[in-house]
């Protein structure tokens, strides 16, 4: 797997400390090591043994979330949540970590960071952010952004995002990313100064390219189809899962009503009383066990959601390719027509309709000098065009090569992560069944003692 040639302006120079080996060594390490640090627990221990640009192990964690009020752009009061990002460097072998940086960021700043990365690293499948608003909720979960459970899950999602970026062999070296983690004030201005918004391809241009491109690389076309399928199937799955969760919640909670009634009934029964009372208690236990079960399932749903959003990132890379390819094709077409024009002028034949041809007919032939001048201009243009075409071609091929490398990396990551998520789902189900067996066995014992 190879790296895109780092843009010296955007990439960081190695830190003052001695690098482990030259830049080449770091690259190799990056190639081998990979995303061990991505899926960690919420404390966010991420040992980037080769991918770090500080050349020491670092840990990133989004450790807290806090409600804040402030004034927004139109000077109105608003409430938002801020997240505390802590970066620790782990000294040597004893694993002691020292807090190097800690600052607060809000969701919109994360968005800004990501948009920046999308513009400057179009060949990279940029990790997605957790959802802005709660979707695929089942009835018990609120769709309120201020809801503490939602905030908590978002905190985990944001941490995951940072870890993924930090462990990406290319993205981790980005200066703006580094500043995001280290420079609280002024960061927004710094990002905006890069002028990345201007560099972004317009949606319209991209759409146009998608329709008109003639010969995109087939792999990207397939990838686009794949990402559409992925998105559709995961959305469907999440929707049904939410409904199943809803129903399951109902089944468990209704059993809780038994508890109260059994207890009241036991008051009038002599022999059955004890059995009823304790059975009722177990029904209560059963009913309340669903809360934890479904909370775990939410984490599973979040893991799937990440890949739902990754589908969009994949499509972004495909779009970029299409755009470049279209650009290339247009440039080649332009060049071809200019060459033709030149030829026609030189030979005096008019094979195709042209304005020049028309005006010539109307206003008479031009003088040989004029013709010469025009041919000269055209030839210059042709030259330029050929140069441009060459470089565009090169760019295009570079892009395809790098993008495809990242896509391969992404595919492996996806397979690993999804498999792990699906297995964790099975583990959750097993735990749920075991709890169920225990509660009902206890209840049965109570019933049989009645």
């Amino acid at each position, binding site marked *: 797997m190879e790296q895109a040639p780092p843009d010296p302006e955007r990439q960081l120079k190695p830190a003052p400390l001695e690098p482990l080996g030259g830049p080449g060594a770091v690259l190799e390490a990056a190639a081998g090591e990979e995303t061990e640090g991505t899926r960690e627990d919420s404390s966010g221990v991420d040992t980037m043994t080769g991918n770090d640009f500080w050349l020491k192990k670092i840990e990133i964690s989004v450790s807290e979330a806090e409600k804040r009020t402030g004034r927004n752009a139109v000077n109105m009061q608003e409430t938002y949540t801020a997240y505390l990002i802590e970066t620790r460097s782990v000294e040597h072998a004893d694993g002691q970590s020292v807090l190097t940086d800690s600052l607060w960021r809000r969701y919109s700043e994360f968005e800004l960071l990501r948009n920046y990365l999308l513009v400057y690293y179009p060949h990279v499948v940029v990790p997605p952010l957790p959802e802005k608003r709660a979707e695929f909720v089942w009835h018990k979960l609120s769709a309120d952004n201020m809801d503490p459970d939602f905030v908590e899950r978002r905190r985990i999602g944001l941490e995951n995002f940072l870890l993924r970026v930090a462990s990406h062999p290319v993205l981790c070296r980005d200066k703006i990313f580094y500043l995001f983690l280290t420079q609280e004030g002024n960061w927004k201005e710094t990002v905006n100064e890069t002028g990345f918004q201007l560099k972004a391809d317009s949606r319209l241009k991209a759409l146009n390219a998608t329709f008109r491109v003639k010969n995109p690389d087939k792999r990207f076309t397939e990838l686009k189809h794949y990402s559409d399928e992925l998105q559709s199937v995961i959305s469907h799955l999440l929707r049904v899962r939410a409904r199943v969760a809803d129903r399951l919640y109902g089944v468990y909670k209704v059993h809780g009503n038994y508890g109260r009634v059994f207890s009241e009934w036991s008051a*009038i029964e002599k022999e059955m009383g004890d059995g009823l009372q304790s059975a009722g208690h177990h029904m209560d236990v059963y009913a309340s066990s669903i809360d934890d079960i479904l909370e775990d399932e939410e984490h599973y749903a979040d893991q799937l959601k990440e890949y739902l959003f990754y589908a969009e990132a994949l499509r972004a890379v495909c779009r970029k390719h299409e755009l470049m390819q279209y650009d290339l094709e247009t440039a080649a077409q332009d060049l071809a027509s200019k060459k033709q024009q030149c030829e026609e002028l030189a030979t005096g034949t008019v094979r195709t309709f042209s304005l020049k041809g028309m005006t010539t007919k109307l206003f008479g032939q031009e003088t040989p000098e004029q013709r010469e001048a025009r041919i000269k201009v055209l030839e210059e243009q042709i030259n330029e065009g050929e140069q441009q075409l060459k470089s565009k071609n090169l760019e295009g091929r570079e892009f395809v090569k790098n993008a495809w490398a990242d896509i391969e990396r992404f595919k492996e990551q996806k397979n690993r992560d999804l498999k792990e998520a699906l297995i964790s789902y099975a583990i959750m189900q097993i735990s749920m*069944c075991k709890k169920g*067996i225990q509660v009902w066995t206890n209840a049965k014992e109570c019933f049989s003692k009645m």
Partner: protein
Amino acid sequence: MGAQGGAGLAAAAGGARTAGMDGERLASGSSELAVGESPRGGAPIPGGSGSCSLMQADVLDLDEDEDDLEVFSKLETRRELEAPPRNHYWSWVLTHKTGKGWTKDDTLSLCLPSTLPTILRLSLCSKDASLMDMNSFSPMMPTSPLSMINQIKFEDEPDLKDLFITVDAPESHVTTIETFITYRIITKTSRGEFDSSEFEVRRRYQDFLWLKGKLEDAHPTLIIPPLPEKFIVKGMVERFNDDFIETRRKALHKFLNRIADHPTLTFNEDFKVFLTAQAPELSSYKKQGPGLLSRMGQTVRAVASSMRGVKNRPDEFMEMNSFIETFSQKINLIDKISQRIYKEERDYFDEMKEYGPIHILWSASEEDLVDTLKGIASCIDQCCKATEKRMTGLSEALLPVVHEYVLYSEMLMGVMKRRDQIQTELDSKVEALTYKKADADLLTEEIGKLEDKVECANNALKADWERWKQNMQNDLKSAFTDTAEENIRYYEQCLATWESFLTSQTDLPLEEDSEDKI
């Protein structure tokens, strides 16, 4: 009069295993019980006293001595009682430790768990057809006291039945006026009083209603099993919906079998006719019975007396009443909760059906995850099936039982009312006596009869109450235990599925990893 008393009884029960066959003739005034081959039970019966009093006879007062119990694992004993004095009849009250009890006024057949000590109490009760709300139209009613033969069978298998009833094969009948369903009732029996050993008849719901009415009339303070409701108000208007018919069929089956198991009701004549008579016979039989006017008279009296309210309800019936009230509340709630659980499980099942196939769909676009995804899909589908099984289990084990007891609790309230009515009649006559000095003699006689009636009614209820409570505990206990068992099985099944999936997934990576390490 020999008062042999308890000691004599014990001795008789424990000691004598001499061969004495049946047919011991009682000396007047004492009742003896010959049990098995030998023992004589003797009990004091104060000689035929006035028609107003109840004579207590304690027969067969068994202690928990094992010897006594062994005796009762032997088979038959037969006893003949001296004819009761004019206007009296024998009433048996059998109670044993768990409180199962009942009364029977003509023949007596007992099935006793052999492990329980038993007391058989004979009472001499006054009989007056107009005061007793008994069904006096049974042709079996002995007009000659001498023909009363009391048989006591002790059987070592408590549930050795001699009457087997099934209700099945619902059929729809269409006439010009109406459409209705009949159910086939097959009865198999070894009892002598039935003309044959097997009967097959068709009955419709109305016939069941008639039977229930007759039983209630004959035994106002016995707990008659409940019938399934006429209509289910919510949801189903369609009376001929398959599920409704099946549920009703099962409930009717239960109804008849409960009657058959009831020590008193099982010998009811109307019950026998119901089981054996073909349709036309039954119609003409139904037309006999108290005329409409006399029934109306009874109803009016009943309503009037219930309006007056009961002043002196004995304590035990106060307790009973309050139990019934609370029980009724709770069982109704449990019925609602259980129905709701069924509904939620059904909804869950419906959603689950869609859940598995999505994973299969997904596996079509993921080459590397095919096995995992298909595995999960298959697990989900299996859990789905297990859920369906659980639902079915719930609807068979729990819902019908709980619902039956909802209906029972309504029945019980009716029984309490009827008991109260009987008492009110007595109370009002007593009151009348204190005010109207005239007709004192007539009133006193009536009061005497009413007192007997009240006593009988109370005893009947008490005994049946104990039996009912025992059944209720057993039935609900097994219903809930079965439900718990269903749930355990459900979770065990799901657990096995997921665990086997997990092992299949976590074994493989060992191979995959080694391939990837290049």
